[in-house]
């Protein structure tokens, strides 16, 4: 092996080792080394969000199909009732889940307070997110999801 190649090869190896070891060099010790994976509750909520998006999209698909003449007025009247009920159900389920989540989080904070903690999660973050939760009242379109209000938005192919 030539001298230059040896030096360059060694440099690549050292650079790779340093880069791979970087997370441990930056944080030799940490209190929280867990992956930020969604909990079971969060995964459940994600499923409900997906169900809500699907239900609202179905409603808009129906409206768009009706406006473009793919569905007769008679069929539309039958189907739109079902779609609205499904969307309202999905929104209610999500609302219930949010309320349960907030209550659960409040209980956790009270528990922490009783135990003498200051509400920090150990990484300097506040355990309860104080941002307003983005949940629409049951049966009403969510203003925070303007994309869902667009009749053409969800129609692919």
């Amino acid at each position, binding site marked *: 092996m030539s001298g230059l190649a*040896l030096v360059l090869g060694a440099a690549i190896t050292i*650079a790779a080792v340093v880069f791979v070891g970087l997370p441990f060099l930056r944080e030799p010790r940490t209190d929280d080394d867990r*992956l930020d*994976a969604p909990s079971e509750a969060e995964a459940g909520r*994600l499923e409900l969000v997906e169900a809500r998006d699907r239900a609202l999209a*179905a409603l808009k*698909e*129906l409206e768009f199909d009706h406006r473009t003449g793919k569905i007769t007025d008679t*069929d539309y009247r039958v189907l739109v009732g079902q779609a609205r009920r499904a969307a309202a159900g999905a929104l209610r389920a999500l609302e219930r889940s949010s309320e349960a989540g907030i209550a659960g989080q409040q209980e956790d904070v009270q528990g922490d307070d009783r135990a003498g903690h200051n509400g920090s999660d150990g990484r300097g973050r506040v355990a309860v*997110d104080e941002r307003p939760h983005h949940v629409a009242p049951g049966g009403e379109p969510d203003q925070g999801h303007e994309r869902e209000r667009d009749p053409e938005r969800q129609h692919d192919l």
Partner: protein
Amino acid sequence: MADLGRAALAVSLGLAVYALVVGIVAARSNRRRLAVSARNALFACFGSTLVAAAVLASALVRHDFSFVYVAQHTNRTLSARYALTAFWGGQEGSLLLWLLVLTGYGTLAVAVNRRLLRDLVAWVVPVLGGIATFFAFVLVAIASPFDTQTAPVDGLGLTPSLQNPYMAIHPPMLYLGYVGLAIPFSFAAGALLSGKTDERWLVATRRWTLAAWAFLGVGQLLGAHWAYVEVGWGGYYAWDPVENAALMPWLAATAFLHSVMIQERKGMLKVWNMVLVALAFELSVFGTFLTRSGVVNSIHSFAKSPIGSWFLAFVVISTLFSVALILWRLPLLKARTKLESALSREATFLYNNLLLVALCLTVLWGVLFPILTQLVQGETRTIGRPYYDFFLRAFGLPLLLLMGIGPLVAWRKASARSLLKLLAWPIATAVVAGAILVAVGAGSSKPGLIAYTFSAFVLATIVVELVRGTRAAGSLFRLVSRNRRRYGGYVVHAAVVLLAIGIAGSSAYQTTTEQRLVPGQTMTVAGYHLTYRGATHIDTPNAQRVQALIDVRGPWSGRLRTGSVTYTGFAGETDREVGIKTDWLRAEDLYVIADDFRPDGAVYFKVLVRPLINLIWLAGLLFVVGSLVALWPDAREQRRLVTRLAPARA
């Protein structure tokens, strides 16, 4: 510098193994720093592979014949441009390109999604690491591009048929397509391994799949054009096993791009989508196996090589892994809704999927048949063009029809009455087009007539859909800009229609005449009068060229040159140089092949007049436009993913 290349590849292998093993440990034990470390290993693997690629590229441009690979695929007369294309002109360089594209794609896909899909990415990294490990291992241990020797005075040179501009773009396009399918596969496998089979992996990989599919499509069309103008047999697609190897994953990916919409809309077909993603990836690796192993006879395949068995083992292992993974997670993939009606948009997507997969498996059987007969009977039996043409018509024509009907069918449930009302104009258009075609004599070929009328029908449905959509949305711009994926898809549909018209026109209605002429004699083909004026011989240090001069009168008048070139070296390889005159107004080609130049001046000519063939190449351009429209970044889509996840993390 070969030592540096070898060292860089060895580092790549080590990093890929690290990403695989440590990635699994990190994801299983839910350890953040370890997962980031494995991710960094994947990123660094791209970096070291890039160094290896730079070393090889530099050696090729410098004509450093101490590299065995450089000596085998270039020589001193080769220009720097073609010297660079020799990167993928040989086996070892092609494999290095595979690894480079894989780790590049992987780095980008993981970097883009690392914050939002942290739990999923933790499993994606070891999957990508596993694939990279295989390719890095083959490059380090079996087929290294950095083997060295005492430098000879000159190299063997690049195969002449690879010395044309198409070779600069056609193979990289195919690689970007083949390897790109590893990204949706890795995310799908990551979703299954993590047990998080929600739709995040679909949203995250949608554009990757679309891009890989577009590259694969463009790569195939470029290959078809190369075959048409350079190989010189008069056709553009020969159902060659290696051509089929690129077609199969493209068909599977096409099916996936359609069926994924049913999962997004209805939460259905989760298992089917996993199967399609795995099928597309496995077929892309299988395609590489076909090209590299020499197991099939093809103008594309490389000589028999020891890497074939390694590739076969990888295809088998990764297929078993995919099947086991899907079976393991079957309970998580259950659909919560059912198909409400056999006459709905969902149902048409399902029919389209069945036809696409049937066509894909039919082609796969055609590719496997010679290999299986060799294994079972000890003699190779091949399946010819009639087999493929029959199934292309059997599955392709209904697919074309569905492409027209599908967009006009409502989601959930459509009534026959409203559908017929919408289809009235397209049906009328198809009937009128059919009647006109019969009147002008196009009824001579039934498949051609059917393809034309179906194409007229599909184009009319696209127009109807755009007109009605524009009315509902207020303007065409507003309609398209708000749903680029849908309307980009329609442009791609229009491209497929042009392709169908081009294929039908150029094959069903072509005129072919073969005749031996001596100087001064004339032959007539489809209104063209071709007079052979004589032959010229041009000798250069590298090649001997012989050309027949032909004067043409008719719809176009002028002179064409056609003949062949025999290269010094390359075992006296002879390539045809065809004479082509394109009439863009009629989209027609006059295609002249000259062969068997006799000492008495007689030459054997084959003349083809191929109507509408140029629509195939125009279809390619339209395909690119449609793909770009569908691929164009959509900030709202990213917001959709973020807003879905934000409440879950709140």
